[in-house]
């Protein structure tokens, strides 16, 4: 395939993925928006109004970036893991496997769908947030960069989960028992400066902390961690997960006999 043909194949997969989650928007777009709106009402307005400011910001202003990032993370992951596993389960992954598409186009096709859903849900949640707080964009290019990298990272993680999954249970285990705890402990609702030293040091092992913190930096201009270090860690994870996902597809793990 020449470059133009590869781009057409990638675009086909990208559009197919967008149409897939758009067809079921009541399951894919609406729930995270409602969930985050409840967070804003309960943690932001009701409980948050009783709490002190954090780093000079009202509690609700402080948690908005983390809640947007939480939606981006869970949706970019969920989109790819469910789409890839469904295509394995219904065997229509074979449509791609018999075609001349190289494996990296298949990877980017699914990842691009995860990016699209992560960004659309992120924008919807941001829109909801405007009803509760004044949204600020301290550093827009950084915001775009960290959002994109986070979407890619978790779309790749979802793809790897989908490759190994053998049942619908397998695609919910990682989000439930790994992703959700790491997200909640990733500094969405607090600054790690508020933690005792042991827990603060332990938090540095949580990759989601770097994404939430960098995203908060891009919106509010406050940070717990140096942004360069955070970006370097996120990019390293993206590279590692991409290499793993591509290798798994090349070896046919979970998709070829």
């Amino acid at each position: 395939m020449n470059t133009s043909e590869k781009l057409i194949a990638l675009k086909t997969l990208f559009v197919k993925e967008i149409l897939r989650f758009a067809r079921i928007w009541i399951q894919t777009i609406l729930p995270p928006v409602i969930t985050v709106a409840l967070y804003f009402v309960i943690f932001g307005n009701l409980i948050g109004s009783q709490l002190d400011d954090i780093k000079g910001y009202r509690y609700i202003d402080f948690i908005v970036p983390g809640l947007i990032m939480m939606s981006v993370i869970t949706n970019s992951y969920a989109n790819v893991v469910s789409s890839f596993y469904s295509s394995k389960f219904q065997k229509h992954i074979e449509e791609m496997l018999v075609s001349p598409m190289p494996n990296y186009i298949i990877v980017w096709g699914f990842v691009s769908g995860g990016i699209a859903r992560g960004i659309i849900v992120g924008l919807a949640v941001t829109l909801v947030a405007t009803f509760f707080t004044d949204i600020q964009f301290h550093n827009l290019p950084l915001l775009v960069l960290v959002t994109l990298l986070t979407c890619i990272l978790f779309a790749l993680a979802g793809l790897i989960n989908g490759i190994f999954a053998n049942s619908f249970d397998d695609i919910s285990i990682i989000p439930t028992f790994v992703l959700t705890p790491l997200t909640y402990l990733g500094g969405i609702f607090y600054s790690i400066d508020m933690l005792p030293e042991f827990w603060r040091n332990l938090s540095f092992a949580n990759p989601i902390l770097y994404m939430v913190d960098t995203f908060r930096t891009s919106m509010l201009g406050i940070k717990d961690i140096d942004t360069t270090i955070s970006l370097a860690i996120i990019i390293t994870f993206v590279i590692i997960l991409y290499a793993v996902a591509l290798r798994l597809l090349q070896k046919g793990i979970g998709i070829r006999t």
Partner: protein
Amino acid sequence: MNTSAPALEIKNLTKRYRNDVLALDGISFHVNRGDFYALLGPNGAGKSTTIGIICSLINKTAGEVNIYGKNIDYEFAEAKKMIGLVPQEFNFNSFEPIAEIVANQAGYYGIALAEARQRAEHVLNKLGLWEKKTDTPRQLSGGMKRRLMIARALVHDPQLLILDEPTAGVDIEIRRSMWKLLQDLNDDGRTIILTTHYLEEAEYLCKNVGIINQGKIIIDTSMRLLLDQLKKETFIFYLRDPLANIPRLDHGDTHKIDERTIEVTPNEHCTLNDIFTDLSQQNIAIVSMRNKANRLEELFIDLVMS
């Protein structure tokens, strides 16, 4: 493109699964351009494994596969562009409209959207499915789903069409219409490889045949030569008038089924003309006749059982 290379060339193809089952034991065969080739064998013989390897759905253990001279390992994209696969099991996205399924398949081959849509319309029209273009596969009957799989396999205009039991579970009317379609596709110059358990289908459609058993090719020849190996064939004759006794024939053995039906097995090297002569000499009038069993089926059972 190498213009002299066969449509499909398989050399020493081996597949050993992780559970140590040897599905293919170094098979070699080729299919010429424009051929209509039957790949037959009992369940578990290795037919679907062979097709899976050709189409990159199964990793091979060893061996070589070339499509129109293009090696599937080293000239991956060029080789795959020439193959269209109609798999045994339905493998659609159940929620996608069928026009999208077919147009997307074209997109995976690098065909731009406008042309992909045109091609989808063309093949769906050809297969009588265009009116259902907004339906999802769940809304189609079994026969329509089979036709949709053929439409999807044809959308990128492959030179080699591989059909893995395409008529399994469809009624006789649809089967006949699919036979006509496949013959037309073959007449257009497309090479077709067919696996089927309906041996009359293979006999009716295919020019050449390979029989695979326990991972080995045991026959690779023309359908005509294979059928010529059949030494004895039995026919059922339906008679106009009732018979009191079993007629004795000079050129064959007879067996009475009922008073208006007899079974005749011509002697070796005797023709049906000889049998008709014997019968007419005894004033026995024949209304109609048929083969007792499908000829290929008899041979197939002999070959596989031995």
